[in-house]
């Protein structure tokens, strides 16, 4: 996942040149001496690592033998490859040679007045087996670097200055063919070279980049796969590969009732945003509280919900935060399936350090069966105990040891119809079945009005249904309508029942609560809004419909004959842990 090398190539009216590359340890000579050794003693095992003792810094980063291939390719060959034709500029450039993949964005700046041009190409050399998403990220980085350099060039001729410095070093040392010395000197003299070196180290270690070009342009970049892998370093087996797509999906599905949990100290956050975003970040952090929802944090911090979503999304991308449902007594937690709980796990020690006297395994065993904080403690006990348990739960959530389970509702009336063996009615397929299979994707836009009904029903409204049985309009009756009085209760109930499919009606009638107008009204309202299709959990229904938990639970209990409830995790915000 880390780059094998960063190569800087320029092409302009004077020709093309490989200006700089990092790392630049020349291993040719060592290879030759080693070969001689090999011939002398056929039984000795040549360790590739011994050759790399030249550079102490490089020893800390494990470099593949494949890297030596790049060293053996001469600079001229590489420059002729990367100083590409102008037609290939300003788009993705990807070249694979045997085991190495080169990716970059050749940035071209044309000066029409003087008919000159500058093409600068910052190429990343990666291992060929790198996944496509990583290659995409590196391309993005190269693009930003290129554009940043061109911006600085237009503003202050930064690029020409740096190129001049580097070329001068190349020419001065022309008699000494050891490019290692040339690059070393360039590193000392050129700030751009130092920038690239810093970039290389950051990519190899944390995957988080914050560099400043020419002391004025800040470039912030993150390799989320690497950043998240560092978070999971405690898991010996199967570190999950977090694709940026997974993160994007989680960010899109952010809702106002979600909350977020910081995975690092607030002090570590400032380096992940450029200075322009620092103010928004600080405002958000001031009102940060894992018990609050994004909506309330937005109100408290005077930021718009949109800004809050964007900032939280950014923090998740940078592996500094994770999306949760705000902590409260009724949240049901269970041990995460891939939680590394074993006797030798480093997490056990970490937990003991943070919470002296408590053992991680014992505390987490309480969550073997799905429980909530409310179940484990009662208000009658020492209040500090609940607080301490909440702290421990937060710690476990930060380390992805716990997972939250939500209850989902599926409307499925039971009835006996001689011909239909499926136990379902057609009205559940308001959209065409093929469409409904593909709507595993979450809601459209978190920015939409919170009272906007979920995806499935809005589709039903757009598609003119051929069958009269499909639900096309909202039949629920307004509670505040004073003209309705209790004498018309039966009428109203009849109307509500008409909104159901023929076969469903039978099942509904069997439920005793259907004779109660309020209950039936609420039931119809929720069903019409599409909440009973197994895609919206109780907390979401409570938030959007302004119901108390007790109200909702009572209703679900009354109609339990036609509803099926089950507990499972929230797929969208779970970041794909299996």
């Amino acid at each position, binding site marked *: 996942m880390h780059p094998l090398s960063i190569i800087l190539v320029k092409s302009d009216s004077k020709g093309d040149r490989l200006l700089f590359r990092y790392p630049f340890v020349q291993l040719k000579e060592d290879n030759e001496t080693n070969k001689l050794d090999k011939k002398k003693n056929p039984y000795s095992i040549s360790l590739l690592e011994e050759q790399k003792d030249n550079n102490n810094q490089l020893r800390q980063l494990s470099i593949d033998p494949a890297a030596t291939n790049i060293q053996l*390719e001469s600079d001229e060959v590489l420059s002729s*490859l990367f100083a590409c034709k102008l037609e290939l500029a300003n788009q993705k450039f990807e070249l694979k040679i045997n085991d190495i993949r080169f990716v970059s964005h050749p940035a071209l700046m044309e000066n029409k007045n003087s008919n000159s041009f500058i093409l600068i190409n910052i190429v990343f050399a990666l291992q060929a087996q790198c996944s496509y998403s990583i290659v995409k990220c590196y391309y993005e980085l190269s693009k930003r670097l290129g554009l940043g350099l061109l911006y600085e060039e237009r503003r202050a001729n930064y690029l020409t200055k740096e190129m001049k410095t580097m070329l001068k070093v190349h020419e001065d040392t022309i008699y000494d063919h050891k490019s290692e010395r040339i690059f070393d000197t360039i590193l000392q003299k050129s700030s751009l070279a130092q920038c690239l070196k810093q970039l290389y180290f950051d990519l190899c270690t944390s995957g988080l980049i914050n560099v400043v070009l020419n002391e004025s342009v800040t470039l912030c970049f993150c390799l989320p796969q690497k950043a998240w892998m560092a978070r999971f370093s405690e898991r010996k087996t199967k570190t999950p590969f977090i694709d940026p797509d997974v993160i994007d999906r989680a960010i899109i599905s952010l809702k106002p009732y979600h909350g977020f949990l910081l995975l690092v100290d607030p002090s570590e956050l400032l380096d992940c945003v450029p200075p322009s975003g620092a103010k928004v970040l600080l405002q958000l952090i001031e009102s940060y509280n894992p018990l609050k929802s994004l909506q309330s944090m937005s109100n408290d911090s005077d930021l718009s919900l949109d800004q809050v979503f964007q900032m939280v999304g950014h923090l998740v991308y940078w592996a500094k935060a994770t999306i949760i449902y705000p902590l409260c007594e009724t949240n049901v937690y269970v041990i995460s399936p891939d939680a590394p709980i074993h006797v030798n796990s480093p997490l056990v020690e970490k937990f003991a350090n943070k919470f002296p006297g408590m053992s991680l395994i014992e505390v987490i065993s309480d969550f073997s069966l799905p429980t909530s904080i409310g179940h484990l403690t009662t208000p009658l006990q020492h209040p500090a105990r609940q607080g301490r348990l909440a702290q421990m739960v937060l710690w476990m959530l930060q380390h992805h040891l716990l997972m939250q389970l939500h209850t989902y509702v*599926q409307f499925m009336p039971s009835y006996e119809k001689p011909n239909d063996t499926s*136990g379902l009615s057609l009205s559940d397929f308001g959209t065409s079945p093929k469409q*409904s*299979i593909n709507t595993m994707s979450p809601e459209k836009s978190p920015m939409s009005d919170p009272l906007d009904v979920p995806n499935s029903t809005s589709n039903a409204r757009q598609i003119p249904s051929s069958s009269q049985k499909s639900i096309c309009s909202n039949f629920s009756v307004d509670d505040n309508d004073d003209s309705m009085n209790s004498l018309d209760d039966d009428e109203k109930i009849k109307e509500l029942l008409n909104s159901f499919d023929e076969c469903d009606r039978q099942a509904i009638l069997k439920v005793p609560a259907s004779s109660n107008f309020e209950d039936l009204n609420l039931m119809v309202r929720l069903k019409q809004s599409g909440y009973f299709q197994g895609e919206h959990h109780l907390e979401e229904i409570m938030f959007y419909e302004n119901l108390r938990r007790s109200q909702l639970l009572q209703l679900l209990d009354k109609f339990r004959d036609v509803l099926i409830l*089950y507990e499972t995790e929230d797929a969208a915000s779970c970041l794909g842990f299996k």
Partner: protein
Amino acid sequence: MKNTPENNEVIKCIFLCEFHATAGTKIVDQSPKNFISKEMFDKASNYVIPKVQLAYCFISISLNDLKILGYPIRIDNKSYVRNAFYFNLCFVFDNGTRTFCYESIIKKCTEYLLSLELSSKFLSKLDETKLKRLELMLDKIRTDINNYGNCMLRDENNILPLCVVPYYEDKLIEINEMGEFSHKAPVLLDCFFENFTLSSWDLTTKMIVPFINGFRHIDRIAQLADVSVTIVLQCVKHLVLLGVAVLVPAFQYSNIYRPTPKLKLLAKSPEVQERAIAKCSKSELKKAKVRDILMLFASMTHGATLGELCVRFNPAKKNIDERNTVLFGLVEQLIRPIFKYPVVVNKNLFVGYEDMNGNHQQQHSLMDMNSCGIPISNASKRSSFDNVKVAKNSFTGLKTLDEICMRTASSTRQLEEQLACDKHVIVLLK
């Protein structure tokens, strides 16, 4: 065994280009004709006929949503006009294709062309008949590989067998991370029976297929089929790699499951429902109802074993075969299994339940009464004692109860009883 291709047009184009003495880099022939336009070729010309040092390397260049993969060749010989001859046989794909599997084909074809050139100057002295021959070759390679994944190229008197080598690295890493899985049960997916005939498989597969029912674990299959466990493990590994089998926990009524977010598909998708009814019904005549199946899945939770659920729901009465239903749920990923992991802790867990004398037993002792003060029968005590010594080391939290049971040849119930009495072991469910 036939390689089923995913889509028909993986190779978009094959072309042969060379460095002509006067005209420079140009395309000699391409199949299909005129796929690569002159401008596009000009953009890529630097990379298909590259600098001298890069000959005999696999070079792939991406541009315009296309990926061109080639193996450039350079022949040094004074007989050529410029003392050298360069050519490259290139395959063109869509940008996202994984091209690793085609590299060996390209190499083989290129080496064949190289041998033709060295022996009879086939490429450098191209005339009408030779061009025709070349065209036929390129066409055949492209169509056969696209349609069948392999090609038996016949050219004059030469036969060149070509085959796409699928890339299994990712899946292989996944499987190797699973470690020892002889306590799991393999399930053969539908595609095993639909896409292949039994006779086309190897001997081991043929021997064990009759015993694979989705409920038996590998150890038992090996016993019944009279094949060594290591060989069966290898065979199952290959089946999983090829995508015709998956591994699930061995069926027991004491297993625990829980629903996944995909469960809503059972209510939404008619195809899933059809499959559900087909697989979960007890018999052909009496079909199960989707609602009942959904109810069964929805009630699966950490606290309820399958046995308890069956007692509660009486699936037989509703024409549901619970074993097949669970298998269906696992294969379609509507439910997932919950495993039990015993972990040893230092602390005495039964503090507070010690016997009246306050005897604090630090080590696992064999009294007639366990530390709860409840007398346990001699028989179970003795049998569990032997297992204790063996199993104690495995209570690390990394092995599931199933695995330990299989290794120690004890039943789940025995082990669970023993663990309940052991004051130093916690059982985690995840």
